[in-house]
């Protein structure tokens, strides 16, 4: 009797419990879906609307000839063939590659050295860090205008060089097609070196003093402990800095557009300034879009390759694998 009731009661309880869990699961499933919709929705809409859609639209325009006003005229891949065989665009790609190479070859050692300098214990270190970061907070347009003034013929730089007896070095900094790219690179370095310094400084501060002390006790010279201890520990920081810098160098636009408009004689045209010139100044919007799509493809392939081969060990588990999988 008691057992019987217990049994039926037990089965009833278990049935109720089963239904309750099912309802709960259903509710939690709905809840989860609601959460996903609410949390992912806005981001997804923005991403599709402002990232994916423009890419698709650009691809659509790129197979047409369009002056911005009249009807679109389908021309197939003509714009792409034209772009890839255009020496101006080829040179623009070359200019970007030069900037990328210079960035990695000059800015990396320089920012590494400066970060190590700023990591030393010295008087006025906080002030120094503040000063070094000042150019970065300046807007790109203002930087460009300021340097345009400074680099004018007989301007600040020329006067300064003459004053210290280096007048022979004076050039037409922005008008000489042989050096304009390097002048621009100096300005880029002036503005963005602090970004590398701040990143590397943070990386340096993450290295425990104990490690260096241990290396010192083991008889490592400062050079050796830098080379075999500090550099490997900074590698993740250097990798992410390189990634951001290369992408930034590939998309270089503001400084070039304000300071030189890609001139003189296309000597400083970049992959980003070229399509804007073709699109908005010559009203060849279809062609400009084709160039933009080519540029996007270059950046995208670089980003994917870099993430696949270099950044993977830094982001493993965070980005490449689903959480909890």
């Amino acid at each position, binding site marked *: 009797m008691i057992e019987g009731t217990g049994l039926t009661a037990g089965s009833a309880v278990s049935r109720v419990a089963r239904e309750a869990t099912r309802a709960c699961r259903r509710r939690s499933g709905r809840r989860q879906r609601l959460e996903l919709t609410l949390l992912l929705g806005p981001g997804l809409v923005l991403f599709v609307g402002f990232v994916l859609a423009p890419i698709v639209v650009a691809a659509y325009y790129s197979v047409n000839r369009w002056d911005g006003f009249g009807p679109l005229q389908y021309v197939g891949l003509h714009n792409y063939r034209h772009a890839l065989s255009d020496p101006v665009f080829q040179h623009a790609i070359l200019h970007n590659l030069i900037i990328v190479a210079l960035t990695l070859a000059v800015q990396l050692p320089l920012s590494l050295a*400066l970060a190590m*300098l700023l*990591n*030393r*214990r*010295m*008087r*006025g270190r906080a002030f*120094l860090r503040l*000063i*070094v970061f*000042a*150019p970065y907070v*300046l807007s790109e347009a203002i930087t460009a205008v*300021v*340097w345009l*003034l*400074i680099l*004018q013929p*007989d*301007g*600040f730089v*020329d*006067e*300064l060089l003459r*004053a210290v007896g280096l007048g022979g070095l004076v050039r037409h900094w922005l008008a000489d097609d042989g050096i304009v790219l390097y002048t621009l690179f100096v300005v880029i370095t*002036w503005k963005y070196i602090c970004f590398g310094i701040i990143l590397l400084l943070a990386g340096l501060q993450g290295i425990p*003093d*104990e490690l*260096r*002390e241990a290396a010192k006790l083991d008889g490592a010279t*400062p050079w050796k402990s830098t080379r075999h201890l500090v550099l490997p520990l900074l590698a993740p920081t250097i990798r992410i800095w390189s990634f951001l810098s290369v992408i930034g160098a590939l998309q270089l636009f503001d400084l070039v557009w304000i300071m030189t408009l890609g001139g003189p004689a296309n000597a400083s045209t970049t992959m980003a300034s070229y399509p804007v010139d073709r699109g908005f100044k010559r009203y060849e919007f279809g062609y400009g879009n084709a160039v933009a799509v080519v540029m996007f493809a270059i950046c995208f392939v670089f980003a994917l390759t870099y993430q696949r081969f270099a950044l993977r060990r830094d982001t493993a588990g965070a980005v490449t694998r689903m959480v909890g999988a």
Partner: protein
Amino acid sequence: MATVAIGPRRRRRRLCPATPLTYAAALAIVAVTVLPLLFVVLGGFRTTAQLNISPTGLPHPWVWSNYRTVITSGSF
């Protein structure tokens, strides 16, 4: 025991003492970074003609009207 007591103090000891070379390098950085900024700020106190005559000069008669015009201008 003595070493244990010294331990935390030794860790706070400077790892790379600053040398005159360090300060020279730091000074160079400050110069390169600050000069263009200083040029802009001081240039704001000069007229275009003064700027063209001597780009490196200090504002001789300080022209305050530039800044006054900007701050009171509606479109700014």
